[in-house]
């Protein structure tokens, strides 16, 4: 159910105006609910498990969905929680992959 909700949110993210999707990592953007990280190198379930485990350790994270087709990690943040671009990059890098870009969708 969470996966379906996050997939729906991810799809809605694609339909958001470009200005929103490319918002810089300001304080306002960092408080968004759904975060999408485009990642290079994720090709298998072990890769997906690695990023799921790493992001799952962060207290700001409420849920994670990995889309191997698009190479994206969709992260649902807890209400009121935030995650900076630097933190996203740290978690992706520690998982063993390369971050390409981060986008956010306000709740």
């Amino acid at each position: 159910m969470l996966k379906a909700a996050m997939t729906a949110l991810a799809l809605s993210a694609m339909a958001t105006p470009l200005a929103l999707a490319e918002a810089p990592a300001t304080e306002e953007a960092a408080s968004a609910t759904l975060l999408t990280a485009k990642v290079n190198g994720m090709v298998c379930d072990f890769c997906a498990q690695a990023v799921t485990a790493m992001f799952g350790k962060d207290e700001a994270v409420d849920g994670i969905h990995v889309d191997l087709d698009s190479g994206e990690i969709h992260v649902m943040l807890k209400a009121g929680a935030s995650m900076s671009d630097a933190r996203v990059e740290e978690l992706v890098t520690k998982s063993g992959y390369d971050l390409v870009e981060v986008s956010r969708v306000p709740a």
Partner: protein
Amino acid sequence: MTSRRFSLCAVACFSIAAAASARPVSYPGGWTVMQRNTGDFSSLHLHYSPTFQDSVGAYVEQNWADDYTFAGAQYNRLLRRWNAPGSQANLYLNLGAGYAESFDGSEQDLAGFAGLAADWETRRYFLSYQARAYDLGFDQSARQAARAGIAPYIGDFGDLHTWLMVEVENVPEAETPVTVTPLVRFFYGVQLVEIGYTPETERFMANWIVRF
């Protein structure tokens, strides 16, 4: 430096490449159990990854072809990873040190091995190569293997993934130095299972990996 130490270092230095199985490192805090049965040997490798570039653990091998048991510690290092959109390539170093004993107990000694492994993978294609050299004190050996694989369908994260693969192995001092093993890999959740058959030696391959 003793001659044995020197020979172990030499093995480490001259080992050229190897690792046809799955990646020998996990994510930080991840544990992996890798169990292999090729007909020539059975092995169990349990390792812990403090970082995505390193893992350390125990390795035990029963070598049915050369009649010995090896038990010791193994360190794996991801020397380099190339991440690209839709693909990943890796180069690994494996080092092991421990104790070896012949099945009949007549020979036992400090032992070690060194190997290199490389792989390239997309969601559709897989290629790998690995080589490993052993110095058992009372015997030395080496083996290398290469694999090619294709996924007949592309599954999502969490689906059952299936790979059709062929492994070519070369063990120079073996009775049958070159063998070809068609195999099928099933990958579901945290578990990976491989089943194959080597016609030249009439032996089955059965490998199992679980990550947690």
